[in-house]
């Protein structure tokens, strides 16, 4: 079930939009912020609030890569795999993260601390290679720096 706070927040947001459906992405993001991901039950609840069919809302939820339809770890690592980061050492970073966390792309570490996800260019190519952890951008990375950064997220 959606928490009351999530419901209230969605209702407030929806007032901003000219049509309820226009708030679909925002509503899903609210659910995700509060519950970590969007479960089938959450999806049903939001569809009802938006007066959308479940299928249509799931179509939206699965289209956008930053909406998670499966559980994720406490922290999401978005590792940029686009061209400038690839030139500047993406492979080495990915290898390193794989070794450190014991997971590949799309997977969650056993201790549920991190989910590792690939992402398109983060618009910080002059500081390649880069990654985001949750809401924070980390730039000019090398394996040593990655270790130090991971330590900050428990």
């Amino acid at each position, binding site marked *: 079930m959606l928490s009351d706070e999530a419901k209230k927040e969605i209702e407030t947001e929806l007032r901003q939009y000219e049509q309820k*459906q226009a708030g679909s*992405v925002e509503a899903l993001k609210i659910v995700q912020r509060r519950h970590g991901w969007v479960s089938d039950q959450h999806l049903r609840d939001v569809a009802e609030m938006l007066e959308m069919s479940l299928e249509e809302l799931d179509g939206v939820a699965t*289209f*956008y890569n*930053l909406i998670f339809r499966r559980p994720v770890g406490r922290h999401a690592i978005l590792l940029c795999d686009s*061209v400038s980061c690839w030139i500047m050492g993406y492979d080495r970073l990915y290898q390193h993260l794989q070794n450190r966390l014991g997971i590949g792309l799309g997977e969650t570490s056993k201790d549920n601390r991190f989910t590792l996800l690939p992402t398109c*260019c983060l618009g910080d*190519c*002059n500081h*390649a290679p880069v990654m985001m952890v949750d809401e924070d951008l980390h730039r000019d990375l090398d394996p040593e720096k990655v270790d130090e950064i991971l330590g900050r997220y428990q």
Partner: protein
Amino acid sequence: MTGKSMATPLTQNIIPDREPLDITQYQQAGGYQALRKAIKELTPEEIQQAVTDSKLRGRGGAGFPTGMKWSFIPMGDDAPHPKYLVANADEMEPGTFKDRLLMENDPHQLIEAMIVSSYATQADVAYIFLRDEYKLAAHCLKQAAQEAHGQGFLGKHILGSGFSLEFHIHTSAGRYICGEETALLTSLEGKRAIPRQKPPYPQASGLWGKPTVVNNVETLCNVPHIINYGAEWYHNLSHSEDGGTKLYGASGRVKQPGCWELPMGTTIREILEEYAGGMRAGYLFRGLLPGGASTDFLVEEHLDVPMDFDSIMEAGSRMGTGGMIILDDKTCPVGMVLNLERFFAQESCGWCTPCRDGLPWVAHILQAIEEGRGQMEDLEILEMHTQFLGPGKTFCMHAPGAMEPLQSALKYFREDFERHIREQHCPWRN
């Protein structure tokens, strides 16, 4: 404005690592003068004319003349309402990081630009469509919008005039295709971001079927300066036929990767050598994508070409976003094209078959070649795809854009492709 800031109007208020100007400081620096002038002294038509005269062309990639784009918006009493103005702040073209710079470091400039542009097109509602990863930009813009509301620059009866503007910041949730302007509008309506057929163009039938202008962030940021100092001044900032300055970027193995506002038409060589500092020690230049992932490679012989829309087109590429990605001699060109095509395959919206099925096939073949399993016939299959997925064959420009780096790589780096196939391994790997 004086001296250097006259030459670089868009970045005049930007000092790296300093907080952006708040509304008081921004006004002390001359901000919101263009808004006052627009609303008090100019008609929407006069502003549209000034933008046309300035020869401003869109900075989102296609380079469409902005004044002409606006001229297709129905004006006058019979025009359908509400009308919309949308700032395209989806910036996801690999190698591009200019809109981020403008939004994080001078958010009021974009907001003022959007109010003036909305007035010029008589829009009732303005949206910023912002990619979700730009958290700092979202924060800066929200704060700036709140300040602008507080001063009566947004909302009802702006500066006591008859003009009102509702303003929203919409943060998205990923997917490159959202940057395509019709997919962006579909996404704003809360649906899967599938592009729409053109025509009708958004100016005639856009958001919820109403007249809509979609402009790139950098494009819009030029508008207040054109209003303040005039079309002729603006046009003269440029070294070329297109008006104004341009935010050029460089990434890859150059000494100082970065983003600089320079006269439109500055040569590639000058940007690479004087601003990016040349290649890093131990690396040689082999080629570059001049304006993001979806532009054709250029090579050594093109270094003296001016970076403006027509000159880069004549050289066989596109200026795109002006975000240059540099290929060095220690990076495998086949590997680079494989990275690009994987990106395009993954980011296809899946609506039309040639793109949905063709791009993964292209990526698959490139992977085989890169891993030393390729055949000479594969090069022909790749070349065929550059035709099958070219302009006019797919529903939107995503697939044709994807073919640009491929077709030019097959031309300029053919020997490297053939060597992978002959030697059955990547020469850049041990």
